[in-house]
């Protein structure tokens, strides 16, 4: 148990550090890293423009920057955002709870709606139900996040619900396919032939087969949620981490981006590790 936990922790740290280093490297080599909008300010003197350019070049050596960053990280110093001129720690402290709350609500809605529709289409083999579910799923998977988010602002509805509606089609799709495969399994067919009721078949025969793969999807759905929340937060002006990530990308704000990558990596990996652990435990218990 301790060995497994330690390995998991090492894995988490390795992924966080690798992802943030890779992200920082990509930002460094991407065009515009050494650019600052102030360079186009015609009121600035030549010396000032040179000074601004030099300041951007201070972080040019990515390995040197990263070494210094990791050392500071272990001292609790996350650096200062170049674009917002505020300590990154303060920014994260203010914004993380907002995003976590939005993510929790969005995922709850997405899973509830996705699974409910998937189960309904399998349990009640109705053309109308299937058509409506497919239509609903197709509608929300085809609608740009920005449009849906704006519509929700127009209707004064919470942005988290928009995010939930954007995530649910993927959960519905996977859930639907998994359930369809499970319902075709011999032991399920046998149970149905022997007269077992719909709910009994679902709970006692179908669920144990599909649950491991659905648990694997939990981890993935968290990273999908992070991806969906970014445009929703930007459009709906929710002061969360997604909005911060967009600002970091636009302004090539290295300290902010590295820390945000760490946060995203932590959240994604923790979610996948927990879902894997739950899946393994469930499979062992079932066996």
């Amino acid at each position: 148990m301790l060995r497994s936990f330690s390995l998991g922790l090492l894995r988490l740290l390795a992924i966080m550090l690798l992802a943030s280093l890779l992200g920082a490297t990509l930002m460094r080599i991407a065009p515009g890293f050494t650019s600052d909008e102030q360079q186009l300010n015609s009121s600035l003197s030549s010396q000032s423009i040179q000074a601004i350019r030099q300041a951007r070049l201070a972080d040019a050596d990515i390995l040197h920057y990263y070494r210094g960053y990791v050392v500071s990280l272990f001292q609790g110093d996350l650096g200062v955002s170049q674009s917002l001129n505020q300590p990154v720690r303060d920014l994260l402290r203010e914004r993380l709870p907002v995003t976590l709350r939005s993510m929790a609500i969005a995922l709850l809605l997405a899973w509830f709606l996705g699974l409910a529709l998937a189960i309904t289409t399998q349990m009640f083999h109705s053309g109308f139900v299937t058509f409506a579910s497919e239509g609903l799923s197709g509608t929300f998977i085809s609608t740009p996040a920005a449009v849906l988010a704006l519509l929700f602002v127009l209707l004064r509805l919470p942005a988290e619900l928009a995010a939930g509606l954007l995530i649910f089609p993927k959960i519905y799709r996977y859930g639907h396919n998994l359930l369809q495969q499970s319902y075709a399994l011999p032991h399920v067919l046998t149970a149905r032939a022997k007269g077992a009721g719909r709910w009994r078949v679902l709970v006692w025969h179908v669920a144990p087969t599909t649950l491991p793969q659905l648990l694997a999807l939990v981890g993935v759905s968290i990273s999908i949620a992070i991806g969906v929340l970014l445009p929703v937060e930007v459009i709906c002006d929710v002061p969360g981490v997604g909005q911060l990530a967009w600002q970091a990308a636009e302004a090539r704000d290295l300290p902010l981006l590295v820390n945000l990558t760490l946060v995203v990596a932590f959240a994604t990996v923790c979610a996948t590790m927990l879902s894997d652990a739950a899946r393994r435990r469930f499979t062992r218990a079932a066996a």
Partner: protein
Amino acid sequence: MKALRIAAVTVLVLAALTALGAHYIAPAGYEHQFRETPAAAPSSHHLLGTDDLGRDRLARLLYGMRVSLLLAPFAAGLATLLAALIGGIAGYWGGWVERCLMLLVDVFLCVPWLFLLLTVRAVLPLNISPEASVVVTFALLGFLGWAASARVICAGTRDMMKSEFVWMARATGFSGLKLIRLHLLPNLRGTLLAQFWISIPVFIITEANLGMLGLGVAEPLPSLGSLLGELQHVVTLRPEPWQFVPLIVLIVVVSSFQTLLNKQEVRA
């Protein structure tokens, strides 16, 4: 259900034919600017009206469908192939191979790939044709969009490797490629197809979002994604129903694909 499937096939055939026959249906082309009638309502000359620069919306929709409905499946296929390869190998071998590959997947999911897209755009010549740049964009989306599905495929493959029929197959001498081709792939088909069909609209919309950063389709070439991007202004200020036609077309096409997918999955 049979009637639904017939309808789905009809819709897809119609979409393909109109996209291919765009030149005949809308001879003015997608780039000609009718400057005397910008932002016009539908009329006999312009069945879906014109956009803000006076370009025929129907022509742009038909050519946009051609771009998006050809390239998004290509990107989705690429992503699915990579996901199947990496997820499948990880699930098949298990052990350290699986651990390393899933570590790679997790790192991949966390990295902000936006900067790679910016770098690739910077490397491409500025005078690259819009057609070439959109192919490159979708290809990149395909190369970057596999990670989320690889986990699910790995989990499915791993579970299948422990299942009775695979044990039996291995006991009778099946292994390696033969085992994968005859036993694993057919049972993964449902999951792979699901990933494929979900990715198509996702890539279409991602292309539209990338347009905000200059990574989408270059003017004047339209795509479904760029047409959907116009809806950001419609929602709050200009409720002109005909501007929703690209969204309706996309929903209908995606739903038709999914209806046919259900039939394939049942058969599988």
